[in-house]
């Protein structure tokens, strides 16, 4: 009797083990390769980057340890006075300007436009499809078309500037919008904003579409009558997780996004339009190996700025952002 009991327990145990082994085999077969890639191309790359920040690479490839020299050098470049400000300093400030402008101008516009599309305004489907045009027909093609549109004395924009008397240089003639010290940064930022609506006009209306119609109906009974009230009291709190995700990832990418500067100027961007993302890409493109350690040190300094700021923003949004719970 006792033996029989042992037998009945042994068979399920074996089965259970086989089941667990199969499950483990399945999981390992999927996660092993991506995790190895992650270890090499993310973890090791970043560890190497940290080590590189304390090194100096000479032209013949010799590596020497220099302590915090690269950090000091980058810091001085970043916060140099306006007269002696190096490329890094200008790029650092411009990166903040670009993020700030996109936050203040773009985000409200994305939400307002999306709200209109969510409310199924006239031609809403056409608007959504058209807003994706730059992504569909290629960012660089649109960029080149934009350049042809605004650059040169026979370009349409030149004629518009001349006729309306806007965007003029010191001599009262239409300024070169892509190269003028006064307008170039504004032009690149405008272009970035102009192109950025596509994906946002898909994501936000889709998030709004998830709102329960009963909530909207009951809000009407509670006195929510206008679009603004509806947007402020109902829509914004309910799509806040989506807004929050874009705010956080936007801040996280503040020093990595090069925007369209590479497309406009390739390696020859004037100093006043530089941003950190472009600067890094250009230095890698130019294979400036000797500058790598300073860039790595700069990367760590900027990470020290952005990482806590991103986490702080996330905490702030979670703590003080609108909530749908009673």
């Amino acid at each position, binding site marked *: 009797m006792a033996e029989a009991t042992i037998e009945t327990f042994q068979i399920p145990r074996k089965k259970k083990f086989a089941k667990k082994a199969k499950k483990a085999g399945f999981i390992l077969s999927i996660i092993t390769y991506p995790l190895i890639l992650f270890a090499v191309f993310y973890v090791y790359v970043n560890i190497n980057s940290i080590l590189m920040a304390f090194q100096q690479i000479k032209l013949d490839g010799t590596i020497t340890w220099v302590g915090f020299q690269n950090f000091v050098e980058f810091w001085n470049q970043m916060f140099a006075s306006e007269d002696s400000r190096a490329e890094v300093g200008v790029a650092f400030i411009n990166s903040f300007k670009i993020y700030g402008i996109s936050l203040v101008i773009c985000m409200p516009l994305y939400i307002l436009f999306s709200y209109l599309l969510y409310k199924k305004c006239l031609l809403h489907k056409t608007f959504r499809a058209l807003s994706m045009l730059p992504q569909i027909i*290629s960012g660089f*093609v649109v960029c080149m078309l934009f350049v042809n549109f605004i650059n040169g004395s026979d370009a349409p924009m030149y004629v518009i500037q001349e006729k309306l008397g806007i965007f003029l240089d010191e001599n009262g003639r239409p300024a070169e919008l892509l190269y003028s010290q006064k307008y170039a940064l504004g032009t690149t930022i405008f272009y970035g904003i*102009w192109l950025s609506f596509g994906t946002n006009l898909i994501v936000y209306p889709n998030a709004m579409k998830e709102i329960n119609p009963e909530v909207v109906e009951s809000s009407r009974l509670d006195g929510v009558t206008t679009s603004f009230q509806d947007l402020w009291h109902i829509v914004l709190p309910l799509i*806040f997780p989506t807004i929050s995700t874009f705010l956080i990832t936007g801040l996280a990418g503040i020093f990595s996004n090069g925007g369209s500067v590479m497309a406009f100027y390739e390696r020859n961007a004037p100093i006043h339009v530089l941003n950190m993302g472009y600067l890094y890409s250009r*230095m890698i493109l130019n294979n400036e190996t000797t500058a790598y350690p300073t860039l790595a040190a700069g990367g760590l300094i900027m990470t020290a700025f952005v990482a806590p700021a991103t986490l702080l923003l996330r905490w702030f949004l979670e703590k003080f952002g609108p909530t749908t719970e009673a």
Partner: protein
Amino acid sequence: MEEIDLRISKYSRVPTKDVDNEIIRLEDVLYKLRQDPVENEEKIEKVIENIEICKKKKGYNAKEKTRTVADYIFRYLLWVFILVYCLSLVILPVWMILTAFKDPLEFSTNQFGWPEQFNFDNFVNVFDKLKIEVLGKRTYTMWDMALISIVYSFSGTFVGVMFTTLMAYVLSKYRFFGRNLIYSIGIIIMIVPIIGSGPSAMMIRRALGIYDNIFLSVITGPSTCFSGLNFLLLYGAFKSLPWDYAEAVFVDGGGHWSAFLKMYLPMALPTMTVIFVLGFLGSWNDYESFMIWFPSTPNLALGLYKFQGVSQALYKSSVPEVMAGFTIVIIPTVTLYLLSQRLILSKFTVGGLKG
């Protein structure tokens, strides 16, 4: 004398005309009550109170009307704004297509008008002229570059979507040691960037022989496939599906792969298609990665980028020929988008960052 019972409140939906009539009626009642003020003291107070409520309601109605008009104007302005924006997006591609059909001579006098005669020579010429010589060793024709674009866009996007899907499936459906850690790392690297690792990545890629090698770059591409918006999108899609489907497969004798391939993959296919199409569009148009990481194998985007930059001096080509090249390069992406437009517009949603 009838009892005074007023049902109008400030927020109730009563037309202003009815409120006006009610005020007249109440004033009439008040007049009658004041004939004997001592007897009707309480009733007079009540009527005066009701008249006040009616007047407030009238004010509220007026404000609401103003708000509705303002709301209408606000929506209308916003609509005009979005219309102008969309038109501005259309102008450049239309100009590109019209220019592509113009004779170079005609273009010098008629830059923005309709072509006098549709000229297809530019499309033929661009195929002949668009050649890129890399490091003085090999010359790439437009066909070569188109082939590189197709292979890179398809394989790179496919590998990326496949690994992202598998990781999203395992992390959303299975409980195992380290699962939460992997998920948290994915979220952390998404929101806490490590800046300036590009130079280090370049050195390591050179050391491993991955630099300037498209095949190795594609297969080592998904190093952060458990992070990013695409991962979150697929993670959410799998999370919303019940585990019962897998149980049914196990009962029928199927394994974990069967459950994934037969049950969950088909259900996640629409979301995967959206990610694939958007990824394909991005890869097809990506010239910057080729400029930095694969300088000796140019794709069509990089070829055209270089071509338009030096076209007049080096290739003796005209703006209409460059525009013809641009028109050719956008045909595959426009076709792909039109085929999957409905899916993209409905499936692309982003939630919060939990973890």
